[in-house]
């Protein structure tokens, strides 16, 4: 009904606007105090791991929490600045945002998101303006996913020492004169571990022609770690099984993490020429890759969150638990123990249960949950070592894997 109304409104507005003048919404004003129709298409995509992480919490489904918080005095304590891509990317941004919403709803905090102007072409200045808007909006703690936020965050954090910053996929920062910014908490993940788990699992499942399509043009550390781990895992499984696997590895058409006709055509080309499964490593690139997979009856590995609900083509997803890490960071902040993470680079991995595969929703037939648990335990106790140094490691001679890097 709400949609029908919005639709009618569309029509009414189009034809009342005579000839010219098109008002573009101000992109920095993400949430307004009047909530529009926010519950719509997203019901089916609730990240499945959301529930387990908040024992004793009142609300566990982030999709039931309004994206636009009502604040009596129009200030918002917890702010989030989005990374490139959109808020509801069903992946990185959305999951971080769900973490913020869950924490805020269960602890009665006000929250708001800010999207830097100019979308995927946002400059440091655009991001800085978003930070400025957040601080002026009364933010006490700012959660910012994405390593590209570094410069804007550095500037904002230097100017506002009273505000705390949580830098997801990031690291500790120094201000321009080289002093450590103790109000910035860098939180990174050991993506190579869940990439490894995914690569190992799909090869054990029986796939021999793999693909990797990553976002960020090969400059985003988290995506590089995912990819490098994926290659290592595939190689290890192939070595155990005594088979040889092929992998096509590409950063093409992913530089701003968005879906595009070109990406879809390229991946469809891969699938048509034999590739069986592609690791879609980057936000809404998933849309293009899953469409190509659906067209050719092939398969996809999801990223960051469990994406199996978005497409039947998803076999499994390499997940990192953003909700949990946001929760830990905000908890530290509100308990007055921000010092324990501020000014440091924390890294969450298998030992913190922060990476893994969704065993409940995966569609593996030949690879069992028990085998997965064994491997996971191996990574935890250190008997399986996953290398994170992708710059020197990726181009080695793989024993059972032919790696074709396509630009």
């Amino acid at each position, binding site marked *: 009904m709400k949609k029908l109304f919005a639709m009618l409104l569309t029509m009414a507005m189009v034809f009342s606007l005579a*000839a010219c003048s*098109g008002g*573009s919404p101000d992109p920095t004003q993400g949430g307004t105090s009047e909530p529009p129709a926010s519950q719509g298409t997203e019901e089916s995509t609730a990240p499945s791991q959301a529930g387990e992480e908040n024992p004793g919490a009142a609300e566990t489904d982030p999709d039931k929490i309004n994206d636009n918080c009502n604040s009596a005095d129009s200030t918002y304590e917890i702010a989030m600045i989005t990374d490139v891509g*959109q808020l509801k990317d069903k992946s990185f941004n959305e999951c971080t945002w769900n973490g913020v919403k869950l924490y805020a709803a269960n602890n009665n905090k006000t929250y708001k998101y800010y999207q830097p102007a100019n979308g995927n072409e946002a400059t440091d200045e655009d991001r800085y303006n978003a930070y400025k808007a957040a601080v002026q909006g009364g933010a006490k703690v700012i959660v910012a996913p994405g390593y590209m936020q570094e410069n804007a965050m550095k500037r904002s954090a230097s100017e506002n020492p009273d505000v705390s910053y949580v830098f997801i996929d990031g690291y500790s920062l120094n201000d321009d004169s080289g002093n450590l910014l103790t109000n910035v908490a860098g939180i990174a993940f050991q993506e190579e571990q869940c990439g490894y788990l995914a690569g190992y699992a799909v090869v054990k499942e029986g796939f021999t022609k793999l693909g990797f399509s990553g976002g960020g043009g090969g400059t985003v550390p988290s995506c590089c770690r995912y990819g490098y781990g994926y290659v290592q895992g595939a190689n290890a499984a192939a070595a155990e099984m005594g088979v040889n696997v092929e992998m096509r590895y590409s950063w093409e058409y992913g530089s701003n993490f968005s879906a595009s006709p*070109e990406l*879809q055509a390229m991946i469809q080309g891969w699938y048509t020429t034999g590739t069986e499964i592609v690791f879609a490593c980057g936000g809404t690139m998933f849309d293009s890759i899953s*469409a190509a997979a*659906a067209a050719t009856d092939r398969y996809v590995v999801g990223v960051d969150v469990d994406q199996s609900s978005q497409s*039947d083509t998803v076999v499994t997803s390499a997940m990192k638990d953003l909700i949990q890490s946001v929760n830990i960071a905000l908890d530290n902040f509100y308990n007055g123990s921000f010092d324990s993470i501020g000014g440091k680079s924390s890294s969450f991995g298998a030992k913190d249960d922060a990476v893994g595969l969704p065993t409940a929703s995966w569609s593996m037939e030949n690879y069992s949950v028990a085998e997965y648990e064994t491997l996971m335990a191996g990574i935890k106790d250190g008997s399986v070592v996953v290398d994170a140094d992708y710059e020197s490691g990726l181009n080695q001679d793989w024993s059972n894997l032919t790696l074709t890097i396509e630009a």
Partner: protein
Amino acid sequence: MTFLIRQTLIYAVPLMIVALAGVFAERSGIINLALEGIMIFGAFIGVVFVNMIQEAGVFDGAKADSNWAALQGFAMLAMLAAAASGALFSLLLSFASVNLRADQTIGGTALNLMAPALVLFFIRIIANQNVLNMAGGDAPSWFMLRKSYFGYGRTDSMGFFGEAFINQTYPATYVCILLFIVLSVILYQTRFGLRLRSCGENPQAADSLGINVYKMRYAGTTISGALAGMGGFVYALTTANCSANGDVAGFGFLALAVMIFGNWKPLNIAGAALLFGLFKCIAASYTSIDINGDGIFMLKELGISSHLYRMLPYVITLVVLAFTSKKSHAPKAEGIPYDKGQR
């Protein structure tokens, strides 16, 4: 090879139909620069339509039974909705340029600026994000023809013809080709077509023979809007997983280029669109193209930088334009508001 044919058609058909949209407007004497904007708007309405019908669950049964005929009917309805919205949207342009005698380039540009802003604005209201997706599933599983529909197994081959033109194609593509042919015939072989073209060449003469120039120009632009709106939705359906984000990657402007490239003539336009689609396809997937079927990807083996392949469609356009533009001639009266008093 079959992949190359399929993919080329997917790129070429939206270009072709939108370029024909441009022809209808320009042949009637109105420069329709707003093709891009109308495409964006048509794509948006088409996706909203698909999304709403999915939410209402009308075709869920057909999807569950793999009743592809019903699903194709659904796609056609969405195309109709997109065409209708495109026609309505283009009325803004016709009103400004026929009734108000405004400058047509500026009117078109205004629509181009307005469409993405407006569409994004409504997408944010409807979906609270910058892109509107289907309510469930993905475009291929709903709207694409698959061999399983015709009793073939997953690994069976449908033969060259079947693989190239039936398996993994969208019937929307063929509807567009059919429309293209029918409309081209109308433009050249019927009384209406002749009158429309005369309004773009010499409206004063046409008027003196009792043809209502305003009506003809409205007709031309409205047909143009409907085609562009439909083309926008077909673009979204076949290349963007049936999602709308206030952008059609400049296909509207490319279609304008294709129209000029094709010298305002349907047959040339079809050729130009196919040429452009072919190179666009090569640019995106040259690493997977096996032309003669011997398992060697020749274009990849050449070791040329991927950037070169990506430039190709545009370089080719420039080169061909340089050689053909001397011969090209636009409709004589295009862009000039018709004034009855002027003789």
